[in-house]
């Protein structure tokens, strides 16, 4: 779709580009809220905040692959699993500190991702989706069956972590810091040649190749980086829940992250934040609503299928009606209605 040429009215100008000092003030306010709010809130809220932070990291990672790279990965949770197991094993057996474990998890997830990406990314089309599905099932198989290392179905128990002697709150600050760093890194990636190459390859791979971009390498990097983000999220998640089991990394979890990317908005960092927050809170709200409606009947039977319906419904609904996700809704509310990928493929 072509950009509408709008008259240079003052209102349009303000709507398009919010005042930068206002924006800066908003960022400062947000940082302050993130910093001080654990002091005023319950353990449950801090717990949810950690979970949201971890999910934001994983969602941004998947968005690098799906949104910016235009490559469909449906095995994202398996790479969280790689990160979680590798960092957990490093911790238990080598006793390395948390930052080293997280880096180890990220590197391992990157390498495993590349291993699955190499065969599938060399072929044009949606083969990566099949390759990642293969990753999902084969990695689950390894997590579950290699019991002497991973602990099998009972999982891997991790020791309690005490950061800065602040317990849960200390871990919250670790998550917040890492989330912020990785978000800034992702945002800046698209100001560099590498990040822009992702988009070029997504839009027209032939044209990108003519411009001197190595298409395969770029796709591999877009996929591997997504997996590395997943590895960080998995390592944090394992340390946070203090247990790593195969059932944390199933297909439905991958669909959860895909839904978060689509709901938030593909190819948008802000979108990933919104999507991850929305999707993390959604099951809690659902549980609450169901408890009120049913008055404590047998919820477990209903909640799993309902979650599947809602995840799927959100993916389909947003792709059909608002392909830009929540970010698109917000921008539309501010009068900017340019749509993403609405142009037909040649």
């Amino acid at each position: 779709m072509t950009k509408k040429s709008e008259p240079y009215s003052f209102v349009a100008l303000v709507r398009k580009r919010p005042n930068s000092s206002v924006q800066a003030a908003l960022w400062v306010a947000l940082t302050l809220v993130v910093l001080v709010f654990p002091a005023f809130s319950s353990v449950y809220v801090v717990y949810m905040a950690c979970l949201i932070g971890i999910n934001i990291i994983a969602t941004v990672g998947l968005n690098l692959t799906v949104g910016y790279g235009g490559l469909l990965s449906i095995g994202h949770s398996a790479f969280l699993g790689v990160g979680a197991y590798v960092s957990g094993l490093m911790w238990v057996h080598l006793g390395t500190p948390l930052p080293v474990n997280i880096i180890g998890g990220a590197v391992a997830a990157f390498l495993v991702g590349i291993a699955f990406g190499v065969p599938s990314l060399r072929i044009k089309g949606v083969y990566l989706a099949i390759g990642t599905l293969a990753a999902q099932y084969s990695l689950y198989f390894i997590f579950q069956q290699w019991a002497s290392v991973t602990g099998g179905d009972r999982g891997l128990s991790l020791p309690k972590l005490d950061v800065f002697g602040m317990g849960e709150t200390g871990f919250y600050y670790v998550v917040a810091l890492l989330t912020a760093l990785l978000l800034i890194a992702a945002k800046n990636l698209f100001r560099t040649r590498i990040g822009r190459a992702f988009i070029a390859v997504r839009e027209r791979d032939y044209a990108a190749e003519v411009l001197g971009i190595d298409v395969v390498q770029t796709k591999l990097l877009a996929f591997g980086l997504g997996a590395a983000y997943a590895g960080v999220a998995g390592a944090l998640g394992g340390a946070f829940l203090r247990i790593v089991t195969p059932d944390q990394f199933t297909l439905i979890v991958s669909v959860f992250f895909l839904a978060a990317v689509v709901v938030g908005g593909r190819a948008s960092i802000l979108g990933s934040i919104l999507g991850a927050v929305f999707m993390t809170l959604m099951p809690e709200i659902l549980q609450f609503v169901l408890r009120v409606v049913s008055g404590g009947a047998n919820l477990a039977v209903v909640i799993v299928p309902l979650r599947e319906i809602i995840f799927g419904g959100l993916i389909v609904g947003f792709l059909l009606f608002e392909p830009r996700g929540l970010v698109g809704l917000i921008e539309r509310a501010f009068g900017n209605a340019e749509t993403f990928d609405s142009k037909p493929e040649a």
Partner: protein
Amino acid sequence: MHQFIEYSIIGIASGGIYVLAALGFIIIYKASNVFNFAMGEMMMLGAYFFYLVDKQLGLGWIIGLAGALGLSALLALAIERGLLRPLLGRPPVVLVMVTLGVGSILRGFAGLIWGPDVVQLAEILPRKPLFIGDLLIPGKLAWSFLWVGLLAGAFMVYYRFSKAGLAIRAASSDQATAEGLGINIRGVFSLTWVMGGMLATAAGIVAGSVNGITPQLGLVALNVLAVVMFAGMTSVGGSLIAGLFIGWMETIVGAYLGAAWQNFLPYVVVLLMMIVKPTGLFGEHRIERI
């Protein structure tokens, strides 16, 4: 050795289900280039439709079969017209994501309506085992294989010799030219989805009458992807050989190494095929390597 032959026969017989599901998958992919990740769920839901009409409404298995095929055809049509048609021309990634979402929705509805437990279908296949010499073949499997063979054969004849089959093949080889020659491309899309839905249902009913159905059947049925990769995404004839082969291999591996390997193995095949020969054994050379 005797045991090996017995397992082999069981495996090949259970591969018949894969053939049907793979045919449904390939026909949709061939015509509209949509990679349908909801195939397994369409299969699972078709079996539940059969259960609904046959047992829950008590109309008997003949009306049950007709009803299940009708309902699943309607469902497939609704998916195509309602969800995929508006997205025509969008990047393939988007269409694939939609089918993934549809699969999740269908699985959820099945779980909500019929619950997570195994449901047994009516015994429409004779249970009495067959003996070839002193080899024992479970009766249900043998009869299901016969039915699958008949259905797959009928479908292939239809595909090869009918006008609709010709239209599908034309659309798959060149959409623009086919449209220029007066073929209703959108009609072809709808037709292939209806056929895909009905083939999936047939596969689902056969699979369900052997082992019973749960909402998770759809995920197991993702193994069909291995068949499709092996056959080549576009080869109708190839799916026959690939389906039987994957079925055989799965049973052999399951019998000698354990059930966990059974779910894992198809994906090893998928990865190997991607590395060695991404066109599959019989696929067209439509695939581009970069």
